[in-house]
């Protein structure tokens, strides 16, 4: 039986989320309620590349996300599990780089995470429906149903998915008080755009953390709402998306 993510853990997690939604979550709900606007939302995110890079070595959103979701810290690079992390600009946008590009520009760290694509290749290839697109655009993942075939990793053009090559414990549980259930060895995981927070009326944790004390480089919002701050940014700023030629239609936008 799957010991890392027991039914009890799951129920406890759901209960906590429900509790937050019903009682204590009024303020947070208002925040997301305003973001959601009218009608069913379609979530998206914008990363202000320069702003994000302006705080050298900042890992606030990464550390917060990985702690909250019990993402294990693994020493061996080839077995790493990552939901959100930074890569050099030249690796994230290779098609934007030219011969005379300044080295500093090539090396500029860029935040990467699951793009929650409109045409997600990972959900297309999953043989069990363990990963699927929600109506709000989130590419979700059910680590209970995942058989660990890693077809989604072969299909993702962004390297956004991680397999649990090793047992994730104790790398994710020492001193961790998060309610989010741990995974087991043998399943794939990735950024879930904080569905547990979205469903409780809160913005994703990385966005909240970045806005609370960081450079406020992340903007989250409803893509269907033309008046949302996100849409305002997308309409006024120069925007890049990762590998647009593949037709995946990422919903994570990079402001340059």
């Amino acid at each position, binding site marked *: 039986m799957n010991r890392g993510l027991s039914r009890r853990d799951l129920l406890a997690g759901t209960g906590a989320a429900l509790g937050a939604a019903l009682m204590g979550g009024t303020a947070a709900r208002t925040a997301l309620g305003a973001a959601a606007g009218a009608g069913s939302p379609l979530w998206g995110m914008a990363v202000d590349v320069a702003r994000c890079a302006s705080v050298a070595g900042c890992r606030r959103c990464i550390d917060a996300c990985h702690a909250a979701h019990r993402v294990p810290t693994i020493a*061996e690079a*080839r077995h790493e599990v990552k939901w959100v992390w930074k890569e050099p600009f030249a690796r994230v946008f290779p098609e934007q780089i030219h011969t005379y590009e300044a080295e500093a520009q090539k090396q500029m760290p860029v935040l990467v995470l699951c793009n929650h694509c409109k045409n997600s290749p990972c959900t297309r290839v999953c043989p069990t429906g363990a990963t699927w697109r929600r109506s709000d655009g989130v590419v979700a993942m059910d680590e209970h149903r995942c058989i660990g075939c890693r077809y989604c990793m072969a299909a993702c053009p962004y390297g956004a998915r991680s397999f649990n090559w090793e047992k994730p414990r104790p790398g994710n549980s020492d001193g961790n008080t998060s309610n989010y259930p741990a995974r087991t060895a043998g399943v794939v995981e990735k950024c879930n755009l904080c569905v547990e927070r979205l469903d409780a009326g809160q913005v994703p944790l990385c966005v909240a953390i970045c806005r609370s004390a960081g450079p406020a480089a992340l903007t989250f919002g409803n893509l269907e709402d033309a008046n949302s701050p996100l849409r305002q940014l997308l309409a006024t700023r120069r925007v890049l998306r990762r590998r647009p030629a593949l037709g995946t239609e990422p919903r994570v936008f990079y402001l340059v």
Partner: protein
Amino acid sequence: MPETTRHPTVSWILQGLLFVLVVLGCVAYGVQVRNGLGVTGLSREMPWGLYISQFTFLVGIGASAVTVLLPYYVHRQKTFARALVLGEVVAVIALCQALLFIMVDLGKPGRLLNILLYPAPSSLMFWDCLTLGGYLTLSAVGLAAVLFARGGSPARWVRGLALATIPWAIGIHVVTALLYAGLAARPAWMTAVLAPRFLATAFASGPALLILLAAVLARRKVFDVGREAIDRLSTIMTYAAMVSLLLALLEAFTALYSGIPAAGEHLEYLFLGLEGHAGLVAFTYGGWLLLLLALVVLLVPSLRRRRGLAHAATAAVLLSVLAEKGLCLVTSGFVPSPLGYVRDYRPSLIELGIVIGIYAGGALVFFGACRWLLTPSESAIHALNPSPTTAREPGMARVAQMEN
């Protein structure tokens, strides 16, 4: 044929050795189940390796039963009766091994049935499971119907079943190719030529394996497939190998002449190495060299007629396909990674132990099949081919005259 006596002890020692390898493979799998797939050489940059490669190679061996089904059931070449039985036995064993390789590759093997419980028609893996399961069932039933006819001629429905099996055989390998060929993230595989290439290498490697097995069985006086069928299998193998060479060159042309970096980076990695990583270069050159040498031997009559040399060339064809499909094709598809990283793949001892264990298991089952299926079924096989000289097409008779 040189007169050799059967050495039962040699056979038993070999089977004992295979059994030990199977046990070691089981132990290695136990270690993998206990600790996770991290005990393999796989990584986040290279999520598939030897297991999925062997799966691909063995599906090809399974599909190559077409090369005995077509001559016997469609072209009514009765001399293919024994090759047919041997080919079907090998195909069924190869497919079971292919399924085992899928099992050992899964992070959660206990959840395998989720593929059927939550069917996802948009996934090629779902269709692969359906076609493989269907083809395995059809082949096993067809084989059993022939072998257990016990002297009587096989029932009429057996031929209908066999004819129905042929498109399934093509289907399993095409679907396996499509599993790779539709991924925008992996330009190395995203080519319409992949499925035809898979079929070509299958129809080269399958007959090669049959020819080599038949040679051993004949020498050991276990089962004689017959000269005529072997010669034709050899011809099929030679042409299939040439077609596969042509398709590989066509693919390389499109990838390299277009000049699109992503289209050719995997070839650079295979032949030259990329960013100082050259893990597959030796296998790439080794595989192609074997294939080219084999083709020289197989195409020059004076060389081909030397039995030993012809067998060496046949083994070279098999090894070259194993190097390509069984290693290079799958792993080079992950180089470079979507974020531009290059990581060489070094299978771990645990991983190699599991691979060798599954192959040893297949060989052991084949030993059993020889003992309990092929040898006792002489009468049934005789019913498939009552007279060695019957049912020759007029055209073939003319060719036979030309040969004399």
